[in-house]
């Protein structure tokens, strides 16, 4: 099972680029759901065997990140009647270039960190850093509230992959707690998005600019 970890991580990195390159919100949400499903497979394959704990976390991950959160985001998108990210702060091609640069740097940086013997040569740490970086990029350079939430999810996914290096150390309770917190966070964000779209007739966060110095 361990053998499929790296190929799965490569797919995860490709989805990162997809998220950075697409302008359609529907595609973004689908990409984010795909990452959620990938994470569930990763949980099982990193554990190496199907244990109760691995199964519980994988099922919770795929249910929450693959289904519940994407459907909440889709609903928010439908209600806001908005389907495209226009005028990102940085264009799509430059953000793809930045994304590749970040991925390259993650690979280099992970090499300088002293890894535990079982992770030397594995893509877990660099993929985690690169995915978190992608999330940052989306958060910082996109104006639509939904895109920013997808960015936050990608950041969270990067952190999740880092957590996979610690499968033995993390009690099930804490992992489920973390997932649950995430869902509630997205839920609260969804409610706020709904209010933003009602108040401003748009989910463009560029309009949220009355509070500044």
């Amino acid at each position, binding site marked *: 099972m361990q053998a499929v970890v790296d190929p799965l991580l490569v797919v995860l990195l490709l989805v990162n680029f997809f998220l950075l390159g697409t302008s359609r919100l529907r595609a973004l949400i689908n990409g984010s759901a795909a990452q959620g499903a990938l994470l569930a497979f990763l949980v099982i394959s990193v554990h190496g065997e199907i244990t109760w704990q691995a199964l519980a976390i994988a099922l919770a991950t795929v249910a929450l990140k693959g289904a519940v959160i994407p459907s909440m985001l889709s609903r928010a998108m439908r209600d806001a009647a908005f389907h495209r990210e226009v005028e990102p702060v940085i264009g799509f091609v430059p953000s793809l270039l930045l994304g590749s640069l970040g991925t390259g740097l993650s690979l280099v940086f992970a090499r*300088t*960190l*002293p*890894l*535990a013997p079982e992770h030397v040569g594995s893509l877990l740490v660099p993929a985690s850093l690169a995915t*978190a970086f992608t999330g*940052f990029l989306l*958060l910082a350079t996109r104006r639509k*509230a939904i895109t*920013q939430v997808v960015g*936050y999810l990608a*950041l*969270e996914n*990067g*952190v999740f992959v*880092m*957590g996979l*290096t*610690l499968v*033995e*150390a*993390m*009690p099930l309770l*804490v*992992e489920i*707690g*973390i997932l649950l*917190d995430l869902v*509630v*966070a997205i839920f*609260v*964000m969804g409610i*706020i998005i709904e*209010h*933003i779209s009602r*108040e*401003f007739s748009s989910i463009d*966060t560029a309009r*949220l*600019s*009355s*509070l500044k*110095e």
Partner: protein
Amino acid sequence: MAIALVVVPLIFAAAAAAMPSQRWRPWLLPACAAAHVALTLAALRSQDVAAIGGWLKLDDLGRLVLPLVSVLFFACSLYAPGYLALRRERSNRVFVPCLLFFLAMNSLIVESQHLGLMWVAIEATTLAAAPLLYFNHNARSIEATWKYLLIGSVGIALALFGTFFLAYAALRAGLATSLFFADLVREAPRLSRPWLHAAFVLLFVGYGTKMGLAPMHTWKPDAYGEAPGIVGTLLAGALTSCAFLALLRFYQIVAAGGEAAFARQLMIGIGLLSMAVASVFMARQRDYKRMLAYSSVEHMGILVLGVGIGGAGVYGALLHLVNNAITKGVLFLSAGNIHRAYGSKSIDDVRGALRRLPFSGALFLAGFFAVTGSPPFAPFLSEFTIVRAAMTSGHAVVGGLFLVMLAIVFIGMGGAVLAVTQGEPPPSDPEGFRDRLGTVAPIALLMAVVVLLGVYVPAPLNALLRNAAAFVDVKP
């Protein structure tokens, strides 16, 4: 006991959510707060408060922060029914349960001995605060809530990243990975250095965002500016204190690992930066509630600076943690009253608060003198302790900069506060907001504590402070 401190507020929160009466619901707040204070006193008296196999435990640091949170929440809960009675047009059906849930999560942060559990509790406070900030349901409060939620969530995600890095530091060193603080402090000398450093930086940035240290403070003026006074108090007094407690726990691990110098440099740098940013933005601030937010940024800077200086500075920072939180209560609640009376937060519209609201105006003015470190108020004592620690430990330049920035803040903030309190009030509706017992007495109570702590630190508090300082500042 350890469990009751978390569960009792949760039960009250559920009761508040189920209660149909808009009018009586706010009275659950003082009831719960009184129960929480009683539980806190009982917990302080007992030697060993622990539960669930060591996941929850009131250690020396917790013994200091828990009463602080409890007292501050108690004052806010006394203020809340009077305030919410004035805001009948807004449903408090979400507001009151969220406040109680917020208290439960603060207790959980203080008590948790497991990194993951503490993270979950801190994230939960972020989520509980979102509906509180959105209480006014207008465009400006949406904007503030969105920024708070997004920046806070990113910060908290980075903190989780740092938590994993810390666990990896143990894994790399071939130790049994445990996420309990006590285990990490014990094993600290053997943790892998590069991972430990990276983890501390991430945790500092993550929980520093929650504290509102510059340059991660950008959510703060918006959130505090739009939040009702009670929420401002609880965020600036209780939640930031809990985030600081989280930081101290990681500082403790790093210090136990013999890397205190590294952490201290970072803390001094960010502390000075926070003070500098606050002093610049406070000088040109026209909105007195946003001004209080920058004051909070400044004081968060003072806290990490005190720990960065080390030695007596740690004691000073812990004393300042208490003093700042209580003083912030005075300022936010009295500013809330002034806002209510004038319907404006701009110092261009508000004049003569001392005339129109003699009590709130006077408390606001006194709170200003206290928070800027004028004697005989409590923050003077703690700031003086930090400066003296800086001067005697070879950080003379840092101490000098500290004093210069305190002076700039005093001048900048003074201009705005005097503009609000002095002068002739504009003509007003005689039926409008006036000082009442319910909205003044809790502030006066907090102010009395500020004055009392300024003249003398009671022996039990001093013991709590000394234990906590010794607990944090471990020698490898």
